[in-house]
């Protein structure tokens, strides 16, 4: 389905029932936003376990999309499908399409390393490289992916600034990345992802291990990032979803594979969702 689309669309759920999504016209932008990333009928399996079924979702460029839903509903699986990290899990399988600028990233001729260069990822647990300094951490992607860039100093400064970390670490760029606090480490990981200039940044519960102040800093960072790139964020925190995201997608599971219930403008999802289950979830009645 398309965010901001007018009229009814339907999504097949696990039990085959058609769920009405999309809903009534909302504060849709007058012009159709450019869609950089899109999934069509995406499924995911781990061995025989069908983890995610039939998700079709579009991510308008330069927006923040929040993926919400209870634990085990396939949000993290879905986000890992988007940059081909899913395939590292032994026994993993998928179906459907993930399109970046109209090209299927799972097409045989696509290079997964190049896909991940275009679609970066920030993980739940901060994971700076412990053997590298702060500066080397930021530049790690450029070295790892063999990018030909020579303005290293300005890359370090601009990426750390965009990640909201520059002021705190500019005097100790040669300290180990592990010497930072948890929140600073996570912002270092964001800076590291930005250094390779991705078009899309995926964030899998980036704040779940952090204190409220660090969370707030990262949320500010996310909003600033969305001026230039597309951000997809998985979160368990309803307030966070309502604060940072422009669009929200609600996933659910009935014991079987996870599926997409509805996706819409964030304000509408939180005030007047089309599906009663979404209303119950965002109001904290379950999950």
């Amino acid at each position, binding site marked *: 389905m398309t965010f901001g689309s007018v009229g009814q669309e339907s999504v097949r759920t696990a039990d085959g029932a058609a769920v009405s999504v999309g809903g009534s016209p909302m504060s849709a932008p007058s012009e159709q936003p450019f869609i950089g990333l899109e999934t069509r009928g995406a499924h995911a399996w781990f061995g025989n376990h069908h983890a995610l079924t039939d998700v079709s979702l579009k991510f308008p460029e330069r927006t923040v999309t929040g993926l919400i839903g209870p634990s085990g509903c396939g949000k993290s699986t879905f986000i890992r499908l988007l940059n081909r990290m899913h395939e590292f899990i032994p026994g993993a399988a998928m179906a459907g399409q993930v399109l970046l600028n109209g090209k299927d990233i799972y097409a045989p001729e696509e290079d997964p390393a190049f896909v991940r260069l275009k679609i970066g990822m920030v*993980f739940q647990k901060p994971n700076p490289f412990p*053997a590298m300094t702060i500066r080397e951490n930021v530049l790690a992607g450029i070295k790892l992916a063999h990018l030909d860039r020579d303005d290293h100093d300005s890359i370090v400064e601009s990426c750390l600034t965009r990640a909201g970390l520059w002021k705190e670490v500019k005097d100790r760029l040669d300290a180990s990345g592990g010497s930072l606090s948890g929140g600073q480490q996570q912002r270092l990981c964001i800076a590291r992802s930005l250094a390779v200039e991705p078009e899309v940044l995926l964030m899998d519960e980036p704040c779940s291990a952090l204190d409220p102040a660090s969370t707030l800093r990262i949320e500010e960072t996310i909003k600033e990032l969305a001026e230039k790139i597309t951000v997809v964020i998985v979160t368990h925190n309803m307030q966070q979803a309502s604060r940072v995201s422009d669009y929200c997608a609600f996933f659910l599971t009935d014991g079987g594979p996870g599926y997409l219930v509805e996706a819409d403008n964030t304000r509408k999802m939180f005030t007047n969702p089309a599906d009663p289950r979404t209303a119950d979830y965002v109001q904290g009645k379950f999950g």
Partner: protein
Amino acid sequence: MSTVEQSSNPMEATPQKPWARRPDEVRRSTLKLAAAAVVALVVVLFTGMAGFDGWAITLLVIVLVATLVTSRSLSSKDRKNLLVSVSITALAMLAFLPWLSILFSVVTKGYQALHVGYLFNDMRVTTPDDELSMGGVGHAIVGSLIMVAIATVVTMPLGILSGIYLTEVRGRLTFLVRFIVQSMAGVPSIVAGLFVYTTVVRTMGEYSGIAGAAALSVLMLPTVSRTAEEVLKLVPDDLRSAGYALGARQWRTAFMVVLPTVKSGLITAGILGVARVIGETAPLLLTSLATNGFAFNPFSGTLGSLPTYTFSLLQYGTEYAVARAWSGALVLMVIVFGLFTIARRVGRKK
């Protein structure tokens, strides 16, 4: 204003360790242990039990019995706690004892033949029966270092690469590689020597240092490889994922992220490998043999080594020869200790 009370002068507090044992307590238990040591010494002197080991075991028994006796006045909970902690400490000491005993005898017997120049002279013009102030172990040190260095240079890359294959690539042959590495670890060292004798020595037509190094490599590889695998397994998958998510290929992630993270662990793998082979005697007798004089060319002719030096002098069997053999063993031990220390320092640096 608030319910928080400030102490009159917040700067007055001095750092203390309320959990530490009081000094008088420490003094009393030290005295008790010293008394037990003296009693043990007396017992050893009067009963003629075997030297240092006998003394240590007697001390252990005395401490255990004394603890049993004194603990009778304590409550049952305290008694159990005391008995368990004393037994655990005592058993740990017991495990430590053989090593301490070896060190003790090597040092006490090995220092006799040491003299200035022992490390820099060879045995070319000195017979094993000459005065201990003549001759030296220099040729054996050089030969050992040359062969172990070659074996390390050959083994480290192979061991690390096989570790990477087993943990990072996880190819179809993982099972086979692991099986072969484990089997190699069980190969008796003399078999490795025979193998190199029939292949390298027979082909070259002469004994040589390079053949010795080859035999040592065969023995060193499984140790390095298995340790490297264990160390690489400790790298969290988070770091690999982070590398892949930055658009890195698997081999670049392995070499630029995973390996630097466990640098000190890989150095430990090398240390363990060196420790495994530097004292090997049997394979060298079949490959590099031994010399009496300095030799520096590993590609032709026999090469001395510390284990063969010690072995041949022990076989000679006279008083001075045996004293020289002990000194050779002492030098070997000091060299291993020195290599360990250097490698640890290098590994910790950053």
